[in-house]
């Protein structure tokens, strides 16, 4: 599986309150949530994001609440992948559970800038900055998580065992 798109670049500790503010949590409709994705950190995000685009951030992406609405909003906004130095743990498992690909790769994060065209190969974890013509090796998932991702998320995985 591959992803290719333009990069939206953010810093440290992008928390779930800015990914999807609580004032919009009176719905769980993915498209409605997507309309407010990143609103409190980047008002223009929803106007500029296109299907396949990629979010790149520094440390501790997704810290804060356990709201699955955060990865759901990101996925529903069209984002194909999030690359960061590290992810907050609840966001990490939520993303895997709902099938939003995420990758940890400090080298890539160091180099990639906002607006760069980036391509990601999920099977190998290879990240290519097409604009800068550089490639990086993202951390591959442990086998169990690869199974979850290839099943399309936790629900499909569990259904196979029931």
């Amino acid at each position, binding site marked *: 599986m591959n992803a290719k798109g333009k990069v939206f670049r953010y810093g440290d*500790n992008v*928390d779930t*309150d*800015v990914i999807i*503010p*609580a*004032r919009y*949590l*009176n*719905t*769980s409709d993915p498209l409605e949530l997507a309309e407010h994705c990143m609103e*409190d*950190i980047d008002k223009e995000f929803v106007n500029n994001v296109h299907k396949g685009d990629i979010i790149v951030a520094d*440390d*501790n992406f997704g*810290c*804060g*609440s*356990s*709201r*699955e*609405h955060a*990865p*759901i909003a990101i996925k529903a906004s069209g984002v194909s992948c999030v690359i960061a130095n*590290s992810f*907050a*743990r*609840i966001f990490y*498992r*939520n993303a895997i*559970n*709902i099938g939003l690909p995420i990758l940890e790769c400090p080298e890539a994060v160091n180099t990639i800038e906002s607006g760069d065209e980036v391509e990601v190969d999920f099977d190998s974890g290879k990240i290519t900055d097409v604009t800068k013509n550089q490639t990086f090796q993202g951390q591959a998932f*442990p086998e*169990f*998580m690869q199974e979850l991702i290839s099943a399309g*998320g*936790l*629900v499909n995985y*569990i*259904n196979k065992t*029931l």
Partner: protein
Amino acid sequence: MGMTMTQKILAAHAGVDSVKAGDLIMADLDMVLGNDITSPVAINVLKKIKRDEVFDKNKVALVPDHFAPNKDIKAAEQCKQVRCFACDQDITNYFEIGEMGVEHALLPEKGLVVAGNLVIGADSHTCTYGALGAFSTGVGSTDMAVGMATGKAWFKVPSAIQFNLTGAFKPGVSGKDLILHIIGMIGVDGALYKSMEFVGDGVASLTMDDRFTVSNMAIEAGGKNGIFPVDDQTIAYMKEHSDKAYTVYEADDDASYDQVIDINLSDLKPTVAFPHLPENTKTVDAIKEPVKIDQVVIGSCTNGRFSDFKKAHDVLKGKHVAKGVRLIIIPATQQIYLDCMEAGFLKDFIESGGTVSTPTCGPCLGGHMGILAAGERCVSTTNRNFVGRMGHVDSEVYLANPEVAAASAILGRIAAPDEV
């Protein structure tokens, strides 16, 4: 190699003799929790699971607390969905208005979690129950759905940081100051993917409420859980609140830790976290420029228990809040509300110019009952001060203990209790 306390609980629930950091396990759950925001998503996910009913109606807890009492029509629909589900599935531990409270204050009070349990909750502050010597951690709605259907969840076994506590708090210093101090020291991702295990002679001097506050904010340091050893106080608390059987787990002597941090409790001072991260801490005595405020909130799963209101009451009694400052008091559960009423606190709070709310998360997450306008500042006993957490993106939240919050309400600026 020896195991940490957390690893022992995980191994027992995975049905294996031992685990080590990094292992991926499937573990049995003793309780699965959700609220009015996360449960609707989980209920929709559950419909997609082949077994679309709960594995054990006694091991699911549903607590509408975030936007309850219903703040608007959409919130009402979400609460209704949870209520109908609880009714359909005959969930024992569903708490309607009138018996509810903020989930992480409610579950221990109702005796639903005891030492040795493994609990997941679709709410990040589920880590609160580590105070009881349980392993509990926040997850998302998909984990909650799968947990409800199968009674299991997957975990990556965490490594741990050990916090070795010695000494005892000085007056006016409590659990909130300890955890803010720790987060200020290690940062909001200082314990990422890790357990925070609290040990040492100093533990005995922490009340159960102190421990709940400390474990509650483990997630604010990125921690997977924050756990205390089981001692006489824990056992007394469990005997008072629960008839469930408990199991005491202890870390092995040769357990390994990524880091050991020594903290002398008597060195700590009242501490405040400045916007917009819980790691931006300063001791109150180090604040040089006066920080004028518009609102004070005393409540939440962090500091909304009886002892918190007693501390606030000690500072507020006979005094009045500053003109133009809104003081909002929110007892975390109906029982705490009743206890505060019987102790006469509520009358005194109102006479001091405060307002008392029914139990709810309310303003803590910018839901309702005290939202901030642009440019406004709030001192709050809650646990998060992210951008826009309590309302407008240009508002500010300062996290503090109940005495500092009360003193700040009186003086209209961030203040220590000995200033009033």
